[in-house]
């Protein structure tokens, strides 16, 4: 879209703005003049009084939004004038004069006396239309009537309250209005958004904006594009001819395209948070009275290890956040099967008691769907909003928000506490985008809690250096140690598939697991090997049901269900099933465990499939490979380390020998 840029003299200072609907701005800044009606002989003193600007300088035609946002950001406190405007436009959009006519860039003055005159003869809007191209919105009645103005203000208050804490594109603003009982106002949404903007209730930005590359004067003019919604840089933008702004190479963001198109000239509205000070103060007071209720173990029936970790996290939340430290974080490092969902309940309860907003985010949609009923059950008196692609609660407001990380792009400084579950469940290259979105969704003074069984290496480093406060939950809820992976040296799977034989050592281990009645996860690296491996296994184990699946398998859902029900005994799979599927009595075989495709984190996750039930806590895990590499070593070290901590802290159940002695 394109907008006008203007500067207005207000309380002795020039202020630069842009406008989606110039009528709003003229009405707003000259409101005193309008209230007084025609006063041709008024004195100068009246003109400069506090509630009425004497003059406003505005461009005579609209300029592309992205450029306008930059210009307004750079302008400072001087009157709008053409030469500097042209220069700043070129800084913002190099080469703009190739397609945007230089002769179009002009500014004109609108004086308060002019406006009075026009109000006097009742022609202001008609009159102005001729002088300024286009029209901001569709209103049946004139904005100059006091009744309409008041209605607009009320409606824009309503809109601002709805947008508060959100980051929305233009079409999302319209969707939100329709969902929030402002459907009659969708036609003039620009009018309402503009009114909210000049009154400081929302920020208007462009989806893709420029940021300066450095502080030094040489570099300051070197700018780079960045998507404000997902944080992506120019490498992830694609330029196409754009009819909305006229730019033959208007950049749009491909990284977040699935969430609607963010582009250089697309409006992005950030709702500045409305602080409900009264309510939250009362909330804190109430929370103080009820402090014992947040004692985790009692209310949520946590195990000792869960309780300790939860208390540490609560303590972290209770500390006032240091102003300087950006987004303080806490890591809950809980082994697979530790029961981390229960551990976050006390944290959610604490936040809710203080009348604050809490968000639980995870990259995975299936985790969201699985968590939703448990949260709803744990907090029946609070409204839960569940967000994922295609969710119907997109515009609902609630106390607890449960969301996939992608949906976070639609929030801005909304949450006081952000709990991120399994951030590492996503490949590294996507992490940056998701981290950006999570930071943006959190209030500047808000706090982060990360949950992971396998925190990414940079985070582990922070832990080792003592920079990241954390709590480890080294034991599973059933209080048995984690199964430690055993090493089995075999050749690469490719070799056995070619010869159509399996080595004795592997067959022996497989039979042992089958005989003890376990179900077997067999993880492999290549999708293409699935079928051949399944055939080979069926040859050796003809009486049991063996299936194979991968990310490209359309019947994956059914096969997983059959495995869960115990209808199939062996499941050959790639890493897609490294998380989520839990089988009570299961053994894990990781074939080609020395492959570069398996890092320590995914080895730990896969190993974590075994021994999940208290009835069979000691499942077998085998790393089958020719080489014993760093990833395998790290994975084993992590597992053994966790068991050691658990034992030292007395979290483990006493073993039989300990009990008898």
């Amino acid at each position, binding site marked *: *879209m394109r907008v006008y840029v203007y500067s207005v003299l207000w309380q002795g200072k020039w202020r630069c703005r842009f406008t989606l609907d110039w009528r709003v701005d003229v009405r707003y800044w000259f409101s005193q003049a309008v209230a007084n009606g025609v006063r041709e002989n008024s004195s100068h003193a009246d003109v400069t009084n506090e509630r009425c600007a004497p003059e406003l300088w505005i461009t005579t035609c609209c300029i592309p939004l992205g450029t306008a946002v930059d210009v307004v950001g750079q302008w400072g406190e001087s009157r709008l004038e053409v030469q500097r405007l042209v220069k700043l436009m070129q800084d913002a959009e190099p080469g703009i004069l190739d397609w945007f006519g230089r002769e179009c860039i002009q500014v004109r003055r609108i004086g308060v006396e002019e406006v009075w005159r026009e109000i006097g003869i009742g022609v202001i809007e008609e009159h102005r239309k001729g002088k300024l191209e286009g029209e901001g919105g569709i209103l049946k009645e004139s904005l100059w009537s006091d009744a309409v103005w008041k209605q607009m203000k009320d409606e824009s208050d309503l809109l601002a309250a709805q947008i508060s804490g959100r980051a929305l594109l233009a079409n999302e603003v319209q969707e939100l209005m329709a969902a929030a009982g402002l459907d009659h106002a969708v036609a003039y949404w620009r009018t309402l958004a503009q009114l909210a903007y000049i009154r400081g209730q929302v920020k208007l930005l462009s989806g893709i904006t420029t940021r300066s590359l450095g502080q030094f004067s040489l570099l300051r003019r070197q700018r780079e594009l960045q998507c404000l919604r997902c944080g992506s840089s120019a490498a992830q933008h694609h330029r*196409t001819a754009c009819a*909305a702004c006229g730019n033959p190479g208007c950049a749009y963001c491909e990284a977040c395209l699935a969430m609607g198109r963010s582009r250089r000239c697309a409006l992005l509205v950030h709702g500045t948070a409305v602080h409900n000070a009264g309510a939250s103060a009362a909330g804190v007071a109430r929370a103080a009275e009820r402090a014992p209720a947040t004692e985790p173990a009692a209310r949520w029936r946590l195990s000792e290890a869960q309780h300790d970790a939860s208390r540490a996290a609560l303590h972290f939340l209770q500390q006032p956040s240091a102003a300087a430290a950006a987004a303080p974080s806490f890591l809950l490092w809980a082994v697979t099967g530790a029961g981390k969902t229960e551990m976050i309940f006390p944290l959610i309860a604490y936040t809710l008691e203080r009348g604050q907003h809490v968000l639980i985010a995870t990259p995975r949609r299936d985790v969201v769907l699985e968590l939703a009923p448990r949260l709803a059950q744990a907090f029946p008196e609070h409204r839960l909003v569940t967000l994922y692609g295609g969710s119907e609660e997109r515009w609902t407001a609630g106390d607890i928000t449960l969301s996939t990380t992608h949906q976070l792009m639609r929030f801005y400084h909304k949450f006081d506490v952000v709990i991120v579950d399994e951030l590492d469940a996503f490949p590294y*290259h996507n992490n940056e985008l998701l981290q950006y979105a999570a930071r943006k969704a959190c209030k500047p003074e808000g706090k982060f809690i990360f949950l992971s069984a396998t925190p990414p290496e940079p985070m582990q480093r922070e832990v080792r250096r003592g920079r990241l406060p954390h709590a480890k939950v080294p034991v599973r809820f059933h209080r048995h140690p984690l199964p430690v992976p055993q090493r089995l040296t075999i050749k690469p799977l490719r070799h056995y598939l070619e010869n159509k034989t399996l080595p004795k050592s592997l067959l022996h281990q497989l039979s042992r697991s089958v005989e003890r009645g376990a179900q077997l996860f067999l993880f492999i690296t290549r999708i293409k090997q699935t079928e051949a491996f399944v055939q080979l296994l069926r040859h050796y184990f003809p009486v049991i049901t063996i299936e194979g699946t991968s990310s490209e398998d359309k019947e994956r859902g059914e096969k997983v269900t059959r495995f869960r029900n115990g209808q199939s005994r062996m499941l050959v799979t790639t890493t897609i099933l490294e998380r989520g599927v839990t089988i009570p009595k299961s053994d894990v075989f990781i074939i080609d465990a020395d492959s570069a495709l398996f890092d320590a984190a995914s080895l730990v996750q896969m190993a974590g499939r075994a021994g999940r039930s208290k009835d069979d806590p000691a499942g077998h895990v085998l790393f089958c490979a020719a080489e014993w590499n760093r990833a395998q070593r790290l994975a084993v070290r992590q597992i053994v380390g966790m068991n050691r901590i658990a034992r030292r802290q007395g979290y483990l159940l006493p073993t039989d020998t300990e009990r008898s002695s």
Partner: protein
Amino acid sequence: MNFSHWLAKLYALLAPKTEVCLACNRPIHRQQGADFRRYDPFFQNTDSTLHGASLTRSSLFTRPTEHPFINLCEACLCQMAWIRIIRCPICGRAIGCPDCTRRGSERTYFQYNRSAVQYSPPMREWLAQYKFRENERYLSILGYMALFAYHQVLLQQLMYKQSPRIDLITYVPVSETRLQERGFNQAEQLARIVAQYAHVPVQSLLQRNRHTIKQSMKSRGNRIEDMKDVFSAVNNANHQLQSLFKIRNPNNPDSQTLRILLVDDVYTTGSTINACAHQLKKSIDPVHKLEIYSLTWARS
């Protein structure tokens, strides 16, 4: 300077650049000897000879510098539902056609329509990705595919024993509101790509006067009724066309008919194309000098 920012750049450089299919996002594995170009209908049979006249590809189109199909995987290339055999000579459908025989009372203002593909579910998805999700990476693929329909239009002219020729390409307009929201008109973009390959000028001759609700929401009868007055010719359409006559044949501008190709994304009942063709014919004088052909990317 931001260190992690540079680190990210370094990562991007070091990461192996695997080609990912535009449509399904899976890595593209090309088997040895397999050529994506075999899914290009022009690659299979380049020349068509009919009634002694021949339609060679090289004489009609320029070859794409980078073949757009390179961005698709084998599995997705197989999904292209090309209309190779035409059953209905009017609407260019590949299956039997009640619509064209039923049109009856309503006059047809265009010669015939040709489409590149059937509007199958995967094709529907591609168009949705391009048009509604606004993923403009699809454009080069869809545009090149539309060229196949252009070839079919000319082939039909040849079958009618006319010399194959299109003088001007125009397109079905979208409303100003839609254009502002979307930033592009899909029909115009397709038209411009076809025109670029075929070396034919493009002109905007039509405008859309109001927003219509989604076509698919309405019955056929409603649709035709609704199409009235939706489109009109732009103010100087007649002038533009008259001057084109003069350019084509300066000595005797009346001797030749002008052949206009009207481009749209999907042909459903033909009511949009027919309404547009009607408006074009209304705006030009004398009418008999104008022949309107229709090209759509898909036929539903």
